[in-house]
């Protein structure tokens, strides 16, 4: 390996290499001589010399009140490299010991509940979330929605696809008056489709929530917040059924 490459492999930058090589050629020399040889200014050379001394590649000697520098013999590079390899081996050894514990933390985290965010004002993201909902295949899918806020998002095809895949679909329809949107009339006869009414004056709920399996989809202010957590989904499902008992039939 060329000396300059070897120096770079030890972590030296180009300028440090140049300073070291200049000092090596000059032998016992002053900082001005190194600066001239390396074609750098004196302040820069000082900084690099300091680094090279800390790496054991140069040494400083004071003589008659003046400081002179000497590059260490190139063989010393081999020793430094060996030291670095030992340090790498020591670090690897430490890592090998703690790796099982780190892996176990990592694996627990992989299985933890997760949260995702989408925008339902972005047509592509809305389509992506709807596709995911249609493919949930949940035994029961529960939906709470504020009609005035979400009426623009009623999509008959989307509901049909959900009904194809789920065991049962229940919706709590929150609106000021007990008037069902005409687009939903066709579904009233569907055996899997159930809908009940809650008055907005009694129940001021401004989100749309959809619960299926262990997923909870929460829409509000342009965003979908999707929480994947079995216990949270189960909790909301119990609350939904408590509200279902209070809600009125259409």
């Amino acid at each position: 390996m060329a000396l300059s490459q070897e120096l770079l492999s030890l972590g030296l930058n180009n300028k440090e290499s140049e300073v070291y090589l200049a000092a090596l050629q000059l032998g016992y020399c002053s900082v001005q001589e190194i600066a001239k040889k390396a074609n750098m200014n004196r302040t820069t050379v000082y900084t690099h010399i300091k680094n090279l001394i800390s790496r054991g590649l140069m040494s400083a000697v004071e003589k008659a009140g003046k400081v002179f520098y000497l590059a260490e013999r190139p063989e010393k590079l081999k020793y430094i490299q060996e030291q670095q390899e030992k340090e790498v081996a020591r670090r690897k050894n430490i890592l090998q010991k703690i790796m099982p514990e780190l892996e176990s933390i990592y694996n627990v985290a992989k299985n933890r509940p997760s949260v995702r965010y989408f925008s339902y004002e972005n047509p592509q993201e809305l389509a992506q979330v709807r596709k995911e909902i249609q493919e949930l295949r949940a035994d029961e899918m529960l939906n709470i929605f504020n009609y005035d806020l979400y009426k623009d998002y009623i999509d008959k095809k989307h509901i049909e696809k959900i009904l194809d895949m789920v065991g049962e679909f229940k919706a709590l329809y929150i609106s000021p008056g007990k008037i069902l949107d005409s687009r939903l009339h066709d579904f009233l006869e569907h055996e899997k489709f159930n809908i009940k009414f809650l008055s907005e004056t009694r129940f001021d709920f401004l989100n749309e929530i959809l619960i299926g399996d262990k997923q909870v989809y929460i829409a509000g202010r342009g965003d979908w917040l999707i929480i994947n957590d079995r216990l949270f989904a189960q909790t909301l499902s119990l609350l939904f059924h408590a509200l279902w008992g209070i809600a009125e039939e259409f």
Partner: protein
Amino acid sequence: MIKQLQTIGLSKEEAKIYLAVLALGKCNLPELCEQSDYDKNVVEQQINNLKQKGLLKIELENKRLMFVAEKPNKLFDLTELKQKEKISVMPRLDFITKEMLESPNVCFLDSDKIINLWNKEIKKEKTNEVFFMGRGVWFKKLFSKKLEGFLIKVNFLCLDKQDYNNTKVNFNKLEKRSLLLPGFKLSLGFLDGRIFCFKSGKNERSFIIDDRVLASGMKAVFFLLWEQAEKIS
């Protein structure tokens, strides 16, 4: 573990943040601040460092930055003493975090941390009225005598008959009602635009949903059930 990570070249702060991200899986900035006990500025700086070291990834999800730890065996790369190109993520991070303040957020926490945060929030905000539904076990943990001075009223909807005895706590400003919902395992507390979701099981992580609209909606659920519930002394 932190000391061992320091010996392979991580700073103390980097090691703590790295372990926090590793434990949380995919997480956001507030979650990481809570888990690591560092403030936002420190966490941002360390995220930057860890990214440069190739130990975590930053993903953008609907204008939110999410942080994911790389597999632990990536740490072996650090031992090779490679010079890494410095890539700054800070300007983008600053821009996004401003938007995050306005958007819903979910923060997963250990039980101890969520209890601390609950107490801190009540003391900080001097919340007038608190709404809590679920398990008596959690009620007992969350409403210590020390909080009495900070609250005007606590409304507790007990949903589990099995741990009803835990609700018999000496707390002055308390109104209790009971509505049995068998199988209700989570406990929910509502505080100023935040929903605290408390889990009891081992290895279960509690969480906070930071969303004013949803918190208001869930309070509406609470009120509706409160009307149906039976008053208990």
